[in-house]
């Protein structure tokens, strides 16, 4: 009998699928619904210390190959998210990941301390937010130094709760960035956040569609880039990876596992495939395991690295 049970930094998931941050992650009920729809763990919307309304609309706009969003760091703040995480416990037994962000290293530390009050199973640091202290407000995740500093600050305040650092591909080298996170105490790497950013222009009105002009790109369009990022992280670290970006099908999820992911993030696929997408991917992965007589997804993790270059 194959099971989908997955152990992620000591936390047990009944499926490797993890609801990605920012997708249906604002409320306890919504998170619990996705858990019962088949996610092995769910991630909250990234929250900071204070509520933020975010950008005006349009802030989430699909294009035929994926989705652009500039909801940015809109969130109800730590107080509210702590309440939601606690309420979630009454509704579901699936692990919950608190996603946090800050605009300074200190804020990352502060919000982690707050998040810890809710006793989430994991804390994920979203380092794709702009570092207000850095030149040009570059994201923490774009710079080895600031990513290291955030990792340390979050780890320091997370106590016994394992910490994931969620990386972006917009950095000098995601493999080396993951290594830096590992060296600074990260327990998990989540790869990747949205890519780009991207833009769409409404030609009739001759102006960008997104209120913020640009937005992160997610969905099937970015799958190959996310998969490569996971492969690179795997090649550079021994940390478990939550492979995220464009996963819509069981085959996509299997590719992520084979590239080195222990768990697989699913976000935009909720649009492309509906909430059933979790059940559908689970079913497909289970069938793949069963066909090969594998008892769990664990043996697939990183298995494609063995093959090496496609030249004998």
């Amino acid at each position, binding site marked *: 009998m194959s099971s989908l049970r997955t152990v992620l930094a000591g936390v047990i998931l009944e499926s490797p699928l993890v609801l990605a941050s920012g997708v*249906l992650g604002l409320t306890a009920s919504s998170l619990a*619904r996705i858990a019962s729809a088949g996610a092995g763990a769910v991630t909250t919307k990234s929250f900071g210390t204070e509520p933020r309304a975010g950008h005006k*609309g349009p*802030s989430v706009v699909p*294009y035929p190959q994926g989705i652009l969003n500039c909801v940015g760091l809109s969130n109800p703040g730590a107080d509210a998210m702590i309440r939601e995480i606690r309420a979630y416990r009454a509704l579901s037994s699936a692990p919950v990941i608190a996603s946090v962000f800050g605009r300074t290293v200190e804020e990352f530390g502060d919000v982690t301390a707050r998040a810890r009050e809710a006793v989430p199973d994991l804390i994920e640091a979203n380092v794709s937010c702009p570092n207000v202290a850095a030149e040009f407000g570059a994201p923490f995740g774009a710079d080895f130094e600031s990513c290291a500093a955030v990792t340390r600050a979050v780890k320091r305040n997370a106590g016994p709760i394992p910490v994931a650092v969620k990386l972006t591909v917009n950095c000098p080298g995601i493999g080396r960035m993951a290594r830096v996170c590992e060296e600074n105490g990260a327990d998990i790497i989540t790869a990747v956040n949205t890519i780009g950013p991207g833009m769409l222009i409404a030609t009739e009105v001759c102006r960008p569609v997104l209120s913020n002009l640009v937005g992160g790109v997610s969905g099937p369009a970015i799958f190959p880039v996310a998969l490569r990022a996971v492969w690179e992280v795997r090649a550079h670290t021994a940390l478990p990876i939550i492979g995220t970006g464009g996963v819509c099908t069981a085959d996509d999820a299997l590719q992520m596992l084979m590239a080195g992911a222990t768990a697989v993030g699913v976000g935009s696929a909720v649009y492309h495939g509906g909430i059933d997408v979790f059940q559908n991917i689970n079913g497909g992965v289970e069938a793949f395991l069963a066909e090969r007589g594998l008892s769990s997804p664990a043996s697939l993790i990183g298995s494609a690295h063995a093959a090496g270059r496609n030249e004998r």
Partner: protein
Amino acid sequence: MPASLFEPGLMRTCRIQSVIVHSPSLKSFYLPSSLDAAPGQFVNLWLPGVDEKPISISGMRDGLMELSVKSVGPFTRALMDCAPGDLVGIRGPFGTGFSPASNSLLIGGGTGIAPIRFLAQSLRDRGMPYALVCGARSRCELIFEDELREWGCRFASDDGTCGICGVVTDLLDEAGESGLISVVCAAGPEPMLLRIMAWADGRSLPYQISFERYMKCGIGICGSCCLDGSGIRVCVEGPVLGKDQIAQVTECGLPHRDASGLRLGE
């Protein structure tokens, strides 16, 4: 790559064809549209340079989609300045519609009259009998009064300027008597909806109720519009919800969440 099938989520732009001024703060806008939409569904309307907001479809006729909007804040105020020829963006239609049935009791309150009017229009087109009651604070907040009256609507207004002086639920017993009611379909302010549901529960009538919640994406991913209870997304599983779905909602009548996701007052 094959040409993709029509995706309601994609942004499309079009020109406002005409505008009906119900009052300075209440207007209907007509947009050319070949969309197939059901009463109860909504679109995300983009005013370039302003914002994008969910608006119910209030009618669909001769290739024109009608949106009826009340000025309540920055977006809707900017919309009041729009004139024929102005370009707007449309995404949708989104969400679920009402299931048309004979002998429906239709109840609209305030801007909730918009989807109810579309529903009445489509029941009339199919020759299905219905009863119709609408209410607003005052006559000047009523859209399509003459047309609705022609369609047999009974009115209520807080200030007595149109129909009975009172709230729309005061008309329910009377409307309920006028014939065999198979289902109650309602849209409007949530306190009104709560009273309607209580009334229908008392008579063991099924109902389909249109909800409003803060919305961003319209495509079921951002989470802004999720209802406490079972996590129903108002933009996908709603806005029209049935009795069983509503039974799982634990936040009926509570203040709504805002753009940050924070419930007002919490």
